[in-house]
């Protein structure tokens, strides 16, 4: 346990903040990989269910795998830094609630944008938006909205931790 006055930025963070940073970074990387693979499918003109579900499943697998690795790393770092028994307290819960509120607005914004786009551009619903089928477009638009809200959640948590609520 380092003395109070000699803390570096890493052990100034508690477990939840470290988790937020890792989730934000890995989430951003996975989102980038996902966007690249979807744009690859669009470029190749492959809009079938096998391709779409294949992309979706390996992204989900990647997220679960990274979650497991993150949990192990956090448990190990917690022991090394000797953080004590309390892992989560009232400040963490308040930050969580505020971050949920922000990510809720991200979902609202994304869904409303999709609705507006649908209203403005009829081809979005009839499957004539360029040459991309509507189901493919809708599936990936909603998945992207969920992913962005996930990133917003962890981004908000990081900001709130840095500002300390």
């Amino acid at each position: 346990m380092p003395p109070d006055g000699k803390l570096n930025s890493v052990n100034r963070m508690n477990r939840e903040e470290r988790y937020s940073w890792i989730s934000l970074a890995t989430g951003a990387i996975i989102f980038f990989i996902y966007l690249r693979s979807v744009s690859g499918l669009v470029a190749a003109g492959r809009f079938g269910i096998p391709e779409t579900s294949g992309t979706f499943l390996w992204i989900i697998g990647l997220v679960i795998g990274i979650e497991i690795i993150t949990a192990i790393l956090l448990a190990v770092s917690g022991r090394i830094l000797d953080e004590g028994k309390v892992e989560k307290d009232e400040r963490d819960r308040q930050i969580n609630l505020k971050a949920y509120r922000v990510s809720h607005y991200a979902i609202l914004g994304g869904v409303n944008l999709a609705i507006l786009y649908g209203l403005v551009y009829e081809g979005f619903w009839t499957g004539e938006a360029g040459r991309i089928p509507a189901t493919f477009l809708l599936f990936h638009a909603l998945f992207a909205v969920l992913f962005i809200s996930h990133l917003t959640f962890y981004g908000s948590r990081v900001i709130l931790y840095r500002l300390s609520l």
Partner: protein
Amino acid sequence: MVMAARHGIHNPYEWMKRSKKLPIENTIRTCRFFAGEMTQQALAEKVGVTRQTILAIEAGRYSPSLELAFLIAHAFGKPLEEVFHFIPPEEPEKVEEPEAITQDQPHE
């Protein structure tokens, strides 16, 4: 950003931190000193929070719940008001209104 530059702070993150003034001050650092240089970790374990929460409260960046404030004061064996102080917001200066002219007053 302009506001930050006016105050001589060029890091927006630092400006956001400084601009967030809480109306509650505390004497936790002094109390820890008089409690035999109790560490933040020891106090955190006593009241059941993380050390980072104690650090944030001590630095005046986080207002604890009433329950946690009582627990911290209890950990030092002091009443709440000796550990936490409320700073009332500055009231705007009152402008004295001129006295109303009554009918009894003589007219010129």
